[in-house]
């Protein structure tokens, strides 16, 4: 659109840095490191009907591209082995990769931190046309909430209908969580995954803890 010669529409490849490539001895720190989940796991009752664990320090990548661009979706599938979930509120997952639909042209991909750089490179190389890959690993953390009362706890957190008929396994929604937000995905009947923003992680942890008080909470590690 611009008449500036610098702004050409040629195939653009964003520069990639291996942000996980830190020096030996440097360890990442979860936004909930201060909570001490390991100690809590020893202290909380083993028979509680609600269980919570954190999957910290995962690799997270935001993908923006055009779902109607067959070359892009094919490239995505070629790299990940997974079909890009273009249906609203859907997700696909393999043993170590999860792809969540966030918006019509946005997906959140989660992989083990060690696999992130390679994935980002391979996607970057394979995808053609206008797209964006943004590393958001440090900006997110993941909770897994499970147990027979998990739905009852979540009802106090999110306004969406959690009934199996409306929220089957694999469905993903980005929704309000109390006064914050989360990306919620059902893993199975009694298990949910919550992707939350780093700066809100403590609030959401406190809220989940509080909401499960009447049932009993076990922290797992």
């Amino acid at each position, binding site marked *: 659109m611009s008449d500036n010669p610098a702004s050409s529409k040629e195939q*653009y490849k964003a520069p990639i840095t291996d942000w996980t490539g830190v020096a030996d001895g440097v360890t990442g720190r979860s936004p909930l490191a201060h909570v001490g989940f390991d100690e809590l796991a020893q202290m909380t009752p083993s028979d509680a009907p609600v269980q919570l664990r954190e999957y910290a320090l995962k690799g997270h990548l935001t993908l923006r591209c055009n779902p109607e661009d067959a070359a892009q979706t094919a490239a995505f599938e070629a790299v990940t082995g997974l079909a890009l979930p273009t249906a609203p509120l859907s997700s696909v997952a393999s043993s170590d990769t999860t792809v969540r639909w966030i918006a019509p042209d946005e997906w959140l991909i989660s992989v083990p931190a060690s696999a992130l750089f390679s994935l980002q490179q391979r996607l970057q190389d394979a995808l053609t046309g*206008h797209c964006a890959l943004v590393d*958001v690993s440090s900006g997110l953390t993941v909770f897994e909430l499970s147990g027979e009362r998990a739905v009852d706890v979540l009802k106090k957190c999110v306004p969406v209908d959690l009934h199996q008929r409306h929220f089957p396994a694999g469905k993903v929604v980005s929704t309000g969580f109390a*006064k914050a937000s989360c990306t919620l995905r059902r893993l199975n009947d009694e298990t949910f995954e919550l992707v939350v923003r780093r700066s809100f992680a403590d609030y959401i942890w406190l809220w989940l803890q509080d909401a499960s008080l009447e049932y009993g909470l076990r922290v797992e590690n």
Partner: protein
Amino acid sequence: MTQLNRLSTGGRINRSKPLRFTWRGQVYSGYEGDTLASALLANGVDVVARSFKYSRPRGIIAAGAEEPNGIVQIGATEATQVPNVRATQQGLYEGLVAEPTSGWPSLEYDLMGAVGKVAGSAMPPGFYYKTFMFPESMWMTYEKFIRRAAGLGRSPIAPDPDRYEKTHQHCDVLVVGAGPAGLMAALAAARGGARVIIADEQEEMGGSLLASRELLDGGPATDWVASVLAELNEHPEVLLLPKSTVNGYHDHNFLTIHERCTDHLADRAPDTQPRQRLHRVRAEWVILATGAHERPLVYGNNDVPGCMTCSAVSSYVQRYGVVPGNRLVVSTSNDGGYQAALDWHDAGRRVVAVIDARRQVASTMADALKDRGITLIEGSAVLNVAGSTRVQSVEVARIDADAHQVIGPVQTLVCDTVATSGGWSPAVHLSCHTGSRPTWRSDIIGFVPGATHEQRLDAGALVGEFSTEGALNSGLAAARQALQALSMSVPEVVVPTLAPVEIMPALALFHVPHTLPTSRAPKQFVDYQNDVTAAGIELSCREGFESIEHVKRYTALGFGTDQGKLGNINGMAITARARGMSIPEVGTTVFRPNYTPVSFGAIVGRDCGPLFDPKRYTAMHEWHVSKGAAFEDVGQWKRPWYFPKAGETMAQAVNRECVATRTSVGILDASTLGKIDIQGPDAREFLGRVYTNAWAKLAPGRCRYGLMCGEDGMVFDDGVTSCLADQHFLMTTTTGGAAGVLEWLEFYHQTEWPELQVYMTSVTDHWATMTISGPNSRKLLGELTDADLSAEAFPFMSWQPMTVAGVPARVFRISFTGELSFEINVPANYGLHVWEALFERGAPYDLTPYGTETMHVLRAEKGFIIAGQDTDGSVHPHDLGMGWAVSNQKPFSFIGKRGMVRADCVRPDRKQWVGIKTRDPSVVLPEGAQGVFDPNAPIPMPMVGHITSSYWSANLNRSIAQGFVKGGHARMGETVYYPLADGSVVEAEICSPVFLDPEGERQHV
């Protein structure tokens, strides 16, 4: 105390579980299953309140939510006080402590009692209206008086120790009310496979069936209730909510249910259990089966304790085994009233007479009366009651067929209880919450719900099906209709059979005539809670307040917590007659949520205390806490404000931090700044349109400051955007503006310029940002990286990727302090590591952490604005003296370009942002101080602009300030005066806003 009114058998109470409770300091006993009201009546407590205007003694009239008098204060301790509780809805528990809310300061002798009639005449109808016309200052006085006198109770002073929860619910069918219609509807819907919630406000489900003597399928009605509840409990898709009032019916079938989870157990909820829960429900279909409230008749002194509704008498006898008196007179206009007489008689107490306004009565009920030998007086009504704290006798006379005139001699009957029934008013309240207006049905003498645009069905007494059989059938029909609409199977459901009942039509009697005109007759109460009388309503109409909405405001009919449950229809009927109109012509007032009072605790839920609002933390927060930082809220973020050392005041700490940064090196946690990754072929063009300045030539590796304006040309955010690669930028925003800016960018991209190929992603949380600033910042950073940090290799306003303390980083040479600065960005998971590494190497440089206050001072010394502090949405770039950041050469327009050249925006006397130097350098002006050019001008002095930023600058050893002055840019060196609240006037000079290093030499090193 003995329970002198308690029967030895019968009722749904558990006599093996006696409970003690305290009423007004005295200990009484009741049983499990009692309400506070039934327990008080069992103990012969007649007076539970004093009326608000006339201070008349009042007793319990009803047995449910419609109770107007028994409004009590519950709570054994200060912290557990609950106002506004209806004694009829409060389950009894061991140790319950209740006090009357009215009757100030005591029931027997109170201030209003002492002034008695004076207060009454001081508060004629129209009191509210008339006080509104007084000066406002008087209203404050009146309001206090009214609030206290109106019997609304008091809030606890101590924090509530209980938990209150909120939860979201979704269902196919929400059934409101668990009487015959509601239970039938829920049963059918559940069998059809629907997800059902059934909520009922009473202590147990069953509604009218709990006090019914009818046989369903040959068995007691309560057996049928038990079997239905048992089946519903078995359904996994059914949620039963007893003790739960559906209080609000909002748009799109969103309803709120107030569940009293543990209110009936103890003064405090058991540990970890919520006391109450607010359910926020989205229902595909709503079936209202809210039943009906019995209308009492309006007659003289009808508020004397002992006057009740007929259905309440039946409820107390049948459900609670309580006969609330010895000698009963019933006055009725319909068959329903007879039940009270039968129940009373069968409980072994004396029914003096049943007075029926109808003539030649023939019905099943009348036969039952005759079988028991109870006296029936036809074509008559109770005109008046004698007694003050208890009914002593009633005056009965014949009335004409229209029920407008007394046509016979008055006879007196000795009794202590009067039960009246004027028929049933469907509880249409919820149906009206979404704007539906009720319609009058003369055949049932009542309003029924009107048409609605919601997916709502109505059943039972609510639609005039007052018989049990009719209610059951209409409940089933509603469920069928809902199931069909939901495309669910309609199951086979058999309605239980009942014995046929012969019913005689009711007579439309509301206001019983007296031998005297209404205005001179004894007080005939319509709305007990608000002390509204028939005479008051007639006066309202005479004074010209004729519309029912005016009558309501003039008299307070249906105000407050009562919402007209007992009195509204009677009030409308009296209004109609006074105006010579029909009731439907008069119409109804609007019923609003909530149906009954909801505690603030339930509304607040867990959004209180530490969970009131999210607290957002940076990756370095724990370090800040460990170093004793004072925190400031910026949006939801907790940012270090300053880092006091032992014994330091805030001013001392800030001065130290300011000097340390300018003389050596300081460090700021800037992680909270909004960060947006922007990429795509049109990213550059996009930036040019949303920022006021030019972006076409910003080369990769370079950074630029940008101003963002609204369409009106007014500044709303600013920040530095860096070119990461030709088509890739990182935008920073203010901390508070981050979410709003991203939304703004997406809005423009999606609605105005969808053709631009650009993607935006928030990376605020991903990056931890730490700014080291000061002459030694290069040396410090150099100890942690191998990168060439020289001015030549890494010039001002550029960025470079490098490894800092073993972590890949983006380092930006940008400065908000005017010093040599490096803004180090690392993935937040490594933020604390890098921060601590800087401190490990920082000691030789006296690396000083500083907070937002020092940041503010340092930027003010340099004359940098803070969007939102120095701007307020009415300031454009030229006002700020930042025309250099506006490029009118861009080929495409930019947001705000047109706005900032409007006539008003180019006036020479606009308020312009300038520096303000007080003549006395030790005086720090308060922010917000208003300037004047002539300190001797008469009040109101013409104000010429206010101070937006003002600090003590330790580096300059004087005060500095910035603010707006009319035409300020052309007034450099002139004097402006700031008259302060304490009467002093501060004289100051208008100057450049840049107080330190105007050439920028310190940052270009």
